[in-house]
């Protein structure tokens, strides 16, 4: 490729990447924008003001989503880290690891449909706890698989060293293991947070429409063909991860492969 065409292509690529963000913001600020208008006739914060003042509960959804995703992210990351260690030290770890892949590979929505009976039975159907547990069930295998590459002979020798030097369990984790895994813990939190933040199918089934996270709202607005409110919910859904990406930029993907 010639340098010039390369340059043009990169400009095009940049526009392509930013386009969805710009388009959704525009759509969310247009009360009327449809065929045959290329641009909306009016732009302004009207939709945002209306929706935030009304009882549509979008702000509530945002907070619920945040609560659910933070819980799922933190719990999955911690459990994933600790339990992947148990798995590593188990003689049959390879077979156990295999089991992790089953729930990981299954479509969450199908998993949820087949699990819903047990959630009903336990009285955690249609409430936030139930949704957190359900999302945890799919984020946890991810965390396990993610951390399986962390544990190796070198880490084990560090652990042995701590033991030889007379360190206790607390010291082992706080002084050695957590600092070593710091960046991986952050990435894992970020990823499991996103798994939860973006989840729709499983949430719709276990939440029975009662737990209205942002993805549920987006779908609701699409269904009623209210594209402007759909765009507002989409904006609320995509900008927090952008912020997280910005903060996490130097950590994410560093150790992915």
């Amino acid at each position, binding site marked *: 490729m010639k340098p010039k065409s390369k340059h043009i292509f990169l400009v095009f690529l940049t526009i392509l*990447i930013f386009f969805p963000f710009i388009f*959704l913001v525009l759509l969310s600020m247009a009360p009327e924008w449809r065929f045959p208008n290329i641009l909306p006739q009016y732009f302004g914060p009207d939709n945002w003001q209306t929706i935030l003042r009304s009882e549509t509960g979008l702000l509530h959804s945002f907070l619920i989503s945040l609560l659910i995703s933070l819980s799922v992210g933190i719990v999955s990351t911690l459990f994933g880290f600790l339990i992947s260690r148990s798995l590593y030290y188990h003689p049959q770890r*390879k077979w156990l690891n295999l089991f992790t*892949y*089953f729930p990981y590979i299954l479509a969450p929505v*199908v*998993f949820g449909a087949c699990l819903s009976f047990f959630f009903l039975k336990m009285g955690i159907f249609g409430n936030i706890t139930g949704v957190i547990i359900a999302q945890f069930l799919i984020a946890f295998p991810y965390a396990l698989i993610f951390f399986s590459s962390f544990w190796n002979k070198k880490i084990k020798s560090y652990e042995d060293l701590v033991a030889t030097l007379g360190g206790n369990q607390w010291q082992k984790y706080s002084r050695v293991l957590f600092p070593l895994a710091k960046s991986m813990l952050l990435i894992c939190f970020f990823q499991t947070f996103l798994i939860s933040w973006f989840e729709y199918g499983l949430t719709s089934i276990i939440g029975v429409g009662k737990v209205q996270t942002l993805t549920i709202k987006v779908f609701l607005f699409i269904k009623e063909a209210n594209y402007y409110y759909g765009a507002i919910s989409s904006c609320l*859904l995509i900008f927090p991860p952008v912020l997280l990406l910005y903060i996490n*930029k130097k950590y994410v993907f560093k150790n*992915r492969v």
Partner: protein
Amino acid sequence: MKISKHQLGIVFFILIGVVPFFGALLYAVLYSFGIVGILNEGFTFLFWKSVFHSGDFVKSLGYSMSIALVSVILSVGGALWLAINFTRNFQSRFFSFIIYLPLAIPGIVTAFFTFQLLSKGGLFSRIFHRLGWIESASGFPDLVNDTYAIGIVLAFITLVLPFFLLLFLSVYKNENIEQLSSLAKSLGANSTQVIRRIIVPILLKKTWIVIVLYFIFLLGSYEVPLILGQEHPQMLSVLIIREIKQYDLTKISEGYAIAVMYTIMVSLAALILFLPKKKISHET
């Protein structure tokens, strides 16, 4: 003491990582044979027979596989092309950040966005109209909810291509492909040979499991085909949920039968992909 702590970890693992999966599978199996379910009257093969008879599963599987395969091939191809041609550019401060941005967009928003762009009343249709290429909205080609699943494939590409790009870039860096390439060049290889014999094989060899995993994820994808798909045939997850949530309460079991087949299929795939190999893999 130490061992019991490990045991505790394993018990937890079994309780939250293994039991739910097999519990769900068991429930679906029981339901599909009419053993559980408030309107079912006991063990029967009826639902399985009717699923096989209607051919729904096979049709939907074929449809889902074609869509997932086309999407993965196009995404991998596109990502390889980008990664190889623009390796240097993506290392710049600006690009190294913005190529992560697509990861902030979930499937449901991608589907919504694709619909807004490509439907007959969508943005592209309006631009075509302004340019005088079409007279009315109906003149715009079918790109969403269409027979060839063009909308779904485009949305899938939008979703996974950025991921593959990041993956390839990171392998490119970690495997020192740059050095290998310059070494090959100094030994007299031309750039086509370097790409064909060195870069692409290394990238694909290091990532093929992830690529297969993404194929399986797309196979079971739900939101995108729900919004952009058509009423028939439908992708697997959409079909299963529709059958399970259908009006005719006496036929819910058929949905579970399809769910069982799908679950067994992807589990087999997981077995094949991740079955412990005889050869002890390298440990560092």
